[in-house]
């Protein structure tokens, strides 16, 4: 179970540019639930993700992941609990290292790293099998540098990396936003398959309202650093993108500009 309790995050505290990114967000996510998060730019989506990942330490409130209070733990200390795929395909893996070296890094996520060979025979075989499951032909390019791969291939490998070691929760940060439609579709299907198979507790931030409703079993909308919508079950099934846009408009108290209509599809 993931529990955020009364989270407050303030950036640039005490300066003229002070900004409240999250004000009093409380959120409980059940074990194995797949939650999607939407909201406009500056709503606090990334901050929420950062609070869970450890990149952002809240000024107030507590964060529990699984059975541990991780409120004050920096990213590296809680990496054993949190797996993550970034929006930027370049951010989640090392371009200078090979595919198999990246997998070896992920294989030991959050664990002690000793003097054992990172790429022994058995590990190489295991990594090859994992990559072969993607069906992208990458298993024949295990020693290629990650930088040689396309954005979509990198995201697919990043998903495999996220699954290499156990975790209490998977964070997806608009992980298909930088991909072309075909590859985005592929990565989303892959995500659904992996999350479904492992019953992973997952939080996916997305810009696409379509995606937010099509995937997962719960959707929350952030606005101005607060949760303004939280639907699941039948209420959610009866929602469509039009309804979401309606709600969006209502919380903002203004008509949507073209930009936001674009991302509705």
């Amino acid at each position, binding site marked *: 179970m993931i529990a955020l309790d009364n989270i407050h995050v303030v950036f640039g505290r005490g300066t003229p540019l002070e900004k409240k990114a999250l004000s009093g967000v409380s959120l409980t996510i059940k074990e194995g639930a797949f939650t999607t998060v939407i909201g406009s730019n500056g709503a606090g989506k990334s901050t929420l993700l950062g609070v869970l990942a450890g990149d952002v330490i809240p000024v107030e409130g507590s964060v529990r992941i699984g059975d541990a209070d991780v409120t004050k733990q920096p990213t590296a200390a809680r990496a054993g609990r949190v797996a993550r795929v970034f929006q930027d395909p370049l951010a989640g*893996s090392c371009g200078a*290292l090979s595919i198999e070296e990246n997998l070896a*890094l992920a294989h*030991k996520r959050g664990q002690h*790293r000793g*003097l054992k060979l*990172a790429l022994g025979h058995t590990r190489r075989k295991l990594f090859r099998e994992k990559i072969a499951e993607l069906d992208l032909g990458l298993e024949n390019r295990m020693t290629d540098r990650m930088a040689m791969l396309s954005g979509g291939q990198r995201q697919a490998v990043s998903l495999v990396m996220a699954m290499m070691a156990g975790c209490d929760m998977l964070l997806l940060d608009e992980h298909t936003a930088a991909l072309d439609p075909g590859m985005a579709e592929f990565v989303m299907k892959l995500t659904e398959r992996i999350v479904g198979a492992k019953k992973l507790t997952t939080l996916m931030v997305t810009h696409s309202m379509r995606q937010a409703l099509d995937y997962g079993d719960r959707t929350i909308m952030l606005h101005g650093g607060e949760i303004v919508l939280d639907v699941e079950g039948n209420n959610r099934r009866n929602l469509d993108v039009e309804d979401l846009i309606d709600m969006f408009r209502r919380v903002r108290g203004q008509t949507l500009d073209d930009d936001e209509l674009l991302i509705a599809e």
Partner: protein
Amino acid sequence: MSQIALWGAVELGLVYAFVALGVYLAFRVLDFPDLTVDGTFPLGAAVAAVLIMAGVNPWLASVVAMVAGALAGLVTATLNVRFKILNLLASILTMIALFSVNLRVMGRPNVALLSVDTMLTPFYGHGLRDFMVRPMFLLMLAIVALIVVWRYLESDAGLAMRATGANVRMARAQGINTDRQVYFGIALSNALVALGGALFAQTNGFADVTAGVGTIVVGLAAVIIGETLFGTRRILIALIGCVIGSILYRIAIQMALSSDSLGLQASDLNLVTAVLVTFALVLPRLKRGVLSS
């Protein structure tokens, strides 16, 4: 170039191979431009020389020199990690401070290591000329150092260090304490450089406070020559490239200085070095430019 001069160039190249390995760790693995080495090299020489003159076993003296080098590296890493000083500036601060430290360690600008036993003494007089024994001894040590560094970089721990240099955000997300990687990596790098200094003192018979000027450039030159000739794809190849690059660099310098037609003299060394390194840096770019146009 005479045979003795050639052996001498190889010998000096092998001494600086340790510097090259250290510079590779800092610059290439951790992406940390570390100028501390200009102070660590004479520090290693000074510590080893003073201890050996005081009657300490030369092997032990060299180990202590390495520890001193590691500590100097830790100072730079602390300035950068703990106090957020820009890495380049942090290393320059330590380097400047080490000049005074080295003078304190020696008590005077230079210490001669004459008529005392060094690490090399037991190997002299077994049929080989002294000027051949030194490079062979150094080659053995360099191979040991190379294997240790190689094996480390191929381990889980070493991979964590490489990830820290390649993508720090990703490294943290994988649970790697990147601060600790910088501390350890820069300490290890400077320990190797200090070992180079300790060997320099023992093969040349003296330690001098000015011996460190340009160490970083020489180390970098070796790394770049190795990369240009052997590529960067595999760790082992890159490390071997560092060692061979260091030797080739010394031979090139020796040839430039001993060729009468060029009219160069020993004091032109720094200028020749700078030109050579610049050339090695620009060459890959020029090659690309020619190919694309």
